[in-house]
C-alpha cells in the first residue's frame, strides 16, 4: 500500500522514471525500501515538512497521510525514515525496518503493485529491484519498451 501511495506523489511531481528498491539483509536484520523519482523535486522547506500529516502540496487539501504512515511504519519497526529532494532533481524516499521486529509488517504483493503501476501510468517507466544477499531480481519497464 505504501508503495502505491508514495508513487502517486512521484507521478504528481511529473516523474518519468520511478525506481523502487527493496533490499533485505538478514545479518543486519534490516529491510530497506527506497523509492526514487526524477520529478520536480521539493525545496528544502517543503522537503522538511513532507512527512508531516498536516502538510500536503495537493491543492485544496490540508492533510497528506501517505508519507506520514510510511514513516510511522518504519518507526514502529525501529527503523528509519528519510526524504531527500532538490528542485528539478527528483526525490528519494527511504524507509528501513528491523526485519525481525514483531511490528514489522509483512511485505505485500509486489507483483500486483507493479502491475497496477505499469497499467495505470503508461507514460512512466518503472524499475524494480529486489535484493536479498547475493540474489537480485529486477524489472525495468524501459527494457520492455525497447524490445
Amino acid at each position, binding site marked *: *500500500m505504501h508503495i502505491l501511495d508514495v508513487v502517486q506523489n512521484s507521478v504528481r511531481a511529473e516523474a518519468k522514471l520511478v525506481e523502487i528498491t527493496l533490499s533485505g539483509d538478514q545479518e543486519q536484520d534490516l529491510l530497506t525500501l527506497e523509492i526514487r523519482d526524477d520529478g520536480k523535486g521539493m525545496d528544502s522547506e517543503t522537503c522538511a515538512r513532507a512527512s*508531516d*500529516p*498536516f502538510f500536503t502540496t495537493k491543492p485544496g487539501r*490540508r*492533510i497528506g*497521510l501517505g508519507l*506520514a*504512515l510510511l514513516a*510511522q511504519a518504519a518507526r514502529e519497526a525501529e527503523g528509519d525514515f528519510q526524504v531527500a529532494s532538490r528542485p528539478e532533481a527528483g526525490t528519494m524516499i527511504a524507509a528501513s525496518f528491523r526485519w525481525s521486529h514483531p511490528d514489522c509488517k509483512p511485505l505485500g504483493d509486489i507483483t500486483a503493485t507493479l502491475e497496477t503501476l505499469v497499467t495505470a501510468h503508461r507514460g512512466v517507466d518503472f524499475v524494480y529491484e529486489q535484493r536479498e544477499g547475493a540474489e537480485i531480481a529486477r524489472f525495468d519497464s524501459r527494457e520492455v519498451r525497447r524490445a
Partner: protein
Amino acid sequence: MNLRQIVQEVRLEVRAGGSALETEVQGGYASDIISDVLANARQGTLWITHQRHPNIVAAAVLREVAAIVLANGREPEEEALRKAREENVTLLVSSLPAYELAGRLFGLGLPGVKK
C-alpha cells in the same frame, strides 16, 4: 448519547477539545491501524485506540470523528496533543483497557459504527 455523558459515565479525562462535549456520538470503533480507521470510521465516531502519535489527529480530522479515546492510561505524544488543540479535535484518555472500555460503552447503549 453525547460526549459529556460518555465522559461522565466511564470517567474519561479530557486532554483537548473540552468545549465540544455536546457533540452527539453516532457509534464506537476500536482500532489501532490508521488505514483501517480511514476506511471504517465515520463522522461522529468515538474512536478507541492505543496510538499516541500525531497521525491519529490527522485521521480524526479526515474522518470527522467525534473524539479519540486513548485506552489503558496512555497519554498522547506532545506533538499529537498540540495538534489536537490546534485542530479542535477532542482527545480523551481512559484508564481502562480497550476491551473493557468498549464493553462498558456498548453496555451503556453506544452501538458500533454503522457501515
